[in-house]
């Protein structure tokens, strides 16, 4: 059983309340941090090697040190709790069951960054979670951990909870800031980056829920101790939300040394594929990262076992690898149809595109329509190439990473499962009856490289 840093107390009865949380050693990092120099806290975070847990994996300490600090201008910390990537539900787990951990992290991080007003932008659909979090915020305030002159240190901090209206795009940090300001959630054109011009035109750091929670153990135990867990540049522990055709879906805290095979098959984690089926494919990091067929998932192209960490999952680039993404681990068994699956993803991205830039606005809709055509048995061979072409010209040409997120799953599906697309075209009647494709999990699949 690997060490747990975030979820260790999650099963303590009443941990949602301030009283129990505090008794269990909560809010110590605030007490400790308030006695430190802010620069030293940032140093600790840098030393810990913590990487953003929202999807991009950018080193948090570095991000914090980029924050511009002009004289007389307020700085802000914004917590991105707009967790809406399909397959990802780790942040909800934290906020729902141990809300004070996030609040503790918010106070400590706000102090480190010099933010007197911080925001938690929570996804609109999480309304019951917002209630839990709000109750926890009120308790923290009553106990003097928020508000003026926290613990007599002279540091003032307010944390506001802001509820989004349910748009996926508001998880993109600049769209989130727009939405927080009360405007339409349209991603901003960068530069300027939020570290220079964020919310209300002031320097802002936007961090994911899990990232902010991880600051708590880093301050408590020191950056070096945190960095010792894990391997290489994947330090600390990571929450993985596993779902799909597995025996034990749920949120798991792993240290990033275990292999993908262990994660899927061991009883400590997913407990193997449900109903005695075989593994066909998996999306290891939330709907936007490339899907991998079983053979490439368990072993890298070089034949080494693939590990559950940033480097190993990305091994081979997008040709034979994928990405850690946001930790949404979606497992497909042999009965699942990749075409239908990718169609669902495309439909999602079409629905959620903000419509600001033309490749994404028009391209995502087009992708969905072609998928529908193939899936309903009306597809032609040329449609597969067209799909490839359409996604290729979206990727990298858009304002925000949403365009890439819409293009990558399509590219990977065609790259690894082209024969399944072709099967749909060649067997139009059968593909209407069977909603699964060809199970090619055992064969070595040829990657399409261009």
């Amino acid at each position, binding site marked *: 059983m690997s060490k747990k840093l975030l979820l260790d107390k999650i099963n303590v009865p009443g941990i949602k309340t301030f009283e129990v949380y505090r008794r269990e050693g909560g809010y110590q990092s605030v007490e400790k941090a308030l006695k430190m120099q802010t620069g030293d806290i940032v140093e600790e975070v840098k030393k810990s090697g913590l990487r953003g847990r929202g999807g991009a994996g950018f080193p948090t300490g570095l991000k914090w040190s980029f924050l511009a600090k002009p004289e007389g201008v307020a700085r802000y910390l914004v917590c991105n709790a707009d967790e809406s990537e399909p397959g990802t539900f780790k942040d909800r787990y934290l906020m729902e069951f141990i809300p004070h951990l996030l609040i503790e992290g918010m106070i400590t991080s706000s102090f480190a960054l010099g933010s007197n007003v911080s925001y938690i932008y929570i996804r609109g659909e999480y309304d019951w979670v917002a209630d839990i979090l709000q109750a926890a915020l009120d308790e923290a305030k009553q106990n003097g951990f928020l508000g003026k002159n926290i613990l007599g240190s002279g540091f003032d901090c307010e944390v506001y909870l802001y509820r989004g209206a349910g*748009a996926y795009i508001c998880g993109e940090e600049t769209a989130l800031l727009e939405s927080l300001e009360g405007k339409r959630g349209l991603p901003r054109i960068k530069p300027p980056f939020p570290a220079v011009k964020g919310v209300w035109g002031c320097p802002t750091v936007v961090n994911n829920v899990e990232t902010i929670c991880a600051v708590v153990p880093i301050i408590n135990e020191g950056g070096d101790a945190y960095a010792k867990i894990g391997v290489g540049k994947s330090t600390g522990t990571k929450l993985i939300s596993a779902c799909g055709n597995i025996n034990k879906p749920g949120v798991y805290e792993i240290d990033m040394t275990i292999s993908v095979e262990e994660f899927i098959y061991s009883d400590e984690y997913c407990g193997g594929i449900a109903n005695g089926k075989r593994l066909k494919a998996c999306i290891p990091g939330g709907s936007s990262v490339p899907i991998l067929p079983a053979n490439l998932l368990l072993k890298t192209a070089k034949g080494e076992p693939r590990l559950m960490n940033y480097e190993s999952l990305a091994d081979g680039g997008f040709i034979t690898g994928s990405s850690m993404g946001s930790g949404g681990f979606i497992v497909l068994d042999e009965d699942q149809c990749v075409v239908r699956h990718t169609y669902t993803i495309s439909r999602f991205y079409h629905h959620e595109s903000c419509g600001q830039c033309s490749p994404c*606005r028009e391209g995502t*809709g087009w992708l969905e329509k072609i998928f529908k055509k193939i899936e309903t048995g009306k597809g032609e061979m040329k449609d597969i190439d067209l799909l490839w072409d359409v996604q290729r010209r979206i990727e990298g*040409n858009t304002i925000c990473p949403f365009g890439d997120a819409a293009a990558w799953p399509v590219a990977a599906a065609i790259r690894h499962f082209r024969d399944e697309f072709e099967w749909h075209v060649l067997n139009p009647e059968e593909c209407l009856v069977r909603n699964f494709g060809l199970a090619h999990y055992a064969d070595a699949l040829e990657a399409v490289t261009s």
Partner: protein
Amino acid sequence: MPEEQEQLFTITIDGVTIEVPKGTTILNAARQIGPSVAPPAMCYYSKLEGSGGKCRTCLVEVAAGSTKDPRPMPKLVASCRTEVMDGMIVKNVTSEKAIDARHGIVEYLLINHPLDCPICDQAGECYLQDLSYNNGEVGTRYEFKRRTFVREDIGPYIQLHMTRCILCYRCLMVADQLTDSRTQGILLRGDASEISTYISKAIDNDFSGNMIDVCPVGALTDRTYRFKNRVWFLKPVDAHRDCDKCCGKVTLWNRGEEVFRVTSRKDPWGEVQIIDGKAAWICNTCRFEKKKTDDWIIDGPTKIDRHSVISTNHYVEKVIPPDPLKEVLFGREPLLLMDIQETSEVNSQDIDLSILPGPATSTTFIERDEQKEIEEADAERLAINDHKKP
């Protein structure tokens, strides 16, 4: 600091090197070089703050970021929103990647466009037409239903034809930046987005007409001019009047002595000109209500140096900008310059098109011819009758 303001950066675009002040965007630097290297811009409008970055037609490849950091940029960048760095090397028409992306953008912009150019007022001066002529494919690969909207009259002067809109957001910026209140906005999201007024409320303020000028396509049209004529049949002249609301400096689009429409004066990039240091936006009175030659003092013929049908047929000799590289078009001729004046009868001077209630169609001319015949026959009969008189 004054020195900083004068700091000049060297930038090379498609092999042409130029010095521009710090803070200039790649697009504006390219425009200073000339139309052969300037990337097309469908959403950027230099006079509107915050515009650009949306349509992605101006994507270029940055082969070297700067002298200090000569690494190429990993992605294509929107030249309208990217500032130059000293020693930057940019590839526009010479970059296969950028051209390929642009072909893609044109395809995306057109999949939901109605392609109703034959009945669109913007035809001939439409940026989407020019863009697709230069960067488009011969046919479309899109085979699904296109998105359509119902046409909407927003106020007495402007009609919104949302089906043609490419969502450049320029008209919203005009409303925000020129008028005292914005009454239109974007509804919905993604490819269902539409520009609309609050429950089809009329747009009513003195500078709203400028939305028509900034619209790169025919989504916002002038209701006082709709279907009256094709732009290339009109002769533009610069004119001015004393106006207490705006600068009063406009372009009149005439046929004979008749004023068909009034627009602001445009620069070669299709934007309003800067006159006396200010963008020469015009008010609705000048644009919609002064349709008599007497209302205006004529300054002289307008020179239009733009690659488009609209630059044909004017009083002054047309200025043809240098050809963009032919390779870009895979050997196709890039210019669309035909002398429609010669071939069409719609241009006939003896029909007063401005008093026709609707569009001029062939019936108008058939009726005219029939009318002529009747008149001639009458005249003949009269003559015979005259003859018969004792």
